[in-house]
């Protein structure tokens, strides 16, 4: 018994070493770094939490990520169910096209938004023809929203399609035969069935949007999302304490929101 435990310890040692080297140590370093102070301004955490600018940026990033997640779940959920259920010519090509942006870095997504809604974009020339003025929203909050939505939707579609395959269709047939309308079936059967998948890919979308950097950096919206704020304090002033504190706070806020959602979904699950 003792030997097998020792064997297990040896077997786990590499995994533990990797965990230590690539996760625990850097994270611990980051947390400690955030509590250091520079120029006697108080610790990094204090500077972040007492500054309206940083807190405002965190709140804005959080709200943007939530709205993006909600919209992505709605759009991606509907199209995911549709694509999983329907068979038609060109379906697999469409799925491939829709999930193509998964691999795009944020910078590319940013440039796609500029191509769509920049000064020389499609919408600008359309607006010039129709209304005599260029329609530009690439550099506003709307541009950032579209960019984030663009890289969130493929994740939702993929997860929902997979979850749909394992949905028990006989439940829907039973509901139909008991006289439930189409809308009732969606609300009472399909959505609860997909709830775990929706919750988990919503969590991924939210976390990705919280940490997204490239798109915001490329578009340069006035909204200063937290990852860009971290880049600014890190590179412009080499202020490691505030940069580390911002990262830790960003991580903590994301984690807390995810935890809260999971609780809510779990409670709602028992009610449904």
């Amino acid at each position, binding site marked *: 018994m003792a030997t097998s435990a020792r064997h297990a310890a040896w077997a786990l040692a590499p995994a533990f070493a990797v965990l230590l080297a690539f996760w625990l140590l850097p994270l611990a370093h980051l947390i400690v770094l955030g509590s250091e102070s520079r120029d006697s301004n108080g610790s990094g955490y204090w500077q972040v939490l007492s500054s309206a600018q940083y807190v405002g940026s965190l709140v804005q990033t959080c709200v943007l990520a939530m709205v993006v997640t909600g919209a992505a779940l709605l759009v991606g959920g509907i199209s995911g169910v549709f694509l999983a259920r329907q068979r038609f010519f060109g379906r697999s090509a469409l799925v491939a096209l829709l999930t193509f942006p998964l691999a795009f870095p944020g910078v590319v997504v940013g440039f796609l938004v500029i191509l769509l809604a920049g000064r020389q974009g499609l919408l600008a020339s359309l607006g010039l023809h129709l209304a005599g003025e260029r329609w*530009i929203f690439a*550099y506003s909050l709307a541009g950032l929203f579209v960019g984030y939505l663009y890289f969130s939707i493929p994740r939702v579609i993929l997860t929902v399609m997979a979850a749909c395959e394992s949905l028990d269709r006989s439940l829907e047939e039973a509901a139909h035969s008991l006289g439930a309308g189409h809308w009732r079936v969606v609300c009472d059967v399909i959505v609860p069935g997909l709830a775990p998948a929706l919750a988990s890919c919503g969590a991924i979308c939210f976390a990705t949007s919280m940490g997204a950097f490239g798109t915001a950096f490329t578009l340069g919206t006035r909204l200063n999302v937290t990852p860009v704020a971290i880049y600014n304090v890190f590179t412009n002033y080499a202020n*490691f304490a505030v940069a580390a504190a911002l990262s830790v706070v960003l991580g903590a806020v994301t984690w807390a929101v995810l935890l809260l959602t999971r609780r809510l979904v779990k409670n709602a699950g028992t009610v449904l």
Partner: protein
Amino acid sequence: MRAFRKTLAAVLLCGMASLAQAADTAICYNCPPDWADWGTQLKAIAADTGVQVPLDNKNSGQSLAQLVAEKAAPVADVVYYGVTFGLQAQKAGVVDGYNTQRLEQIPSGLKDPAGQWFAIHSGTLGIMVNVDALGGLPVPQSWADLLKPEYKGMVGYLDPSSAFVGYVSAVAINRALGGDLDNFTPAIDYFQKLAQNAPIVPKQTAYARVLSGELPILVDYDFNAYRARYKDNAHVDFVIPREGSISVPYVMSLVANAPHRANGEKVLDFVLSDAGQALWAKAYLRPVRPVPIPAEVAAQFLPDSDYARAGVVDYQKMAAVQEAFAARYLNEVK
């Protein structure tokens, strides 16, 4: 076991080969081929001194951050960055003094007395205009022109809280409109007015977007505009605004405890030499030492009467108030 020994020997040999190669190498942070024609400069360094310097694509801020992070075990020998970053690096204690004899020829505001940083060349801030993308509108001649409604959605400036060029723009506009480093209100007022004109505010260099016409008017350096006009043959004009502007030096430092210090010194000597300085002029950056500029290059610059409107500021103070300004900009310009 024999195979293992062979591998070991091979690894050792490789290690020694790379050490031998390292003997003639200097590591420079932020020597990108696309900026200030570092590509040609580094080739000239290799040809003249035998020191190989690999290209490096960091920007000023990333270089500073990396130097601070590597303070205990430095990797770089020399570093090139905007002047305020040099001052930040000095404050962080990551650079060393280098007392080259050519230091005396650098004007006093453009170097640290102990040589912890010194200018190698400078650029002047102004308005870079893609004339073809203006749609027939006149080329703006002043900061005030950019506020006119006909330029709505056409004007870009780099984010002053994010890019060094953006901060330089803010200082230049502030000084031109009557402010100073203790009073940034004129710049804040100006950016608030400009915000009504739907400006585009990139966080990093937007050179390509000016050339493509996406961004017809950009507040940027003279050397970028000249490069667009004469090297990339774009129909680009450069204007030093009527109200005035500033020139900003780019500086280099020797890294503290540099692993190849002697090679680093050779690099610094070369960029300040007549040959090195002439190369900067060919890349449209004003050499810091009074070396003769080739006539055909001098003719491509705007006339000296225009450059008379570009002043200098106290760069130490400019660095000291940067963070406070960035915070104020983020709070007040929306």
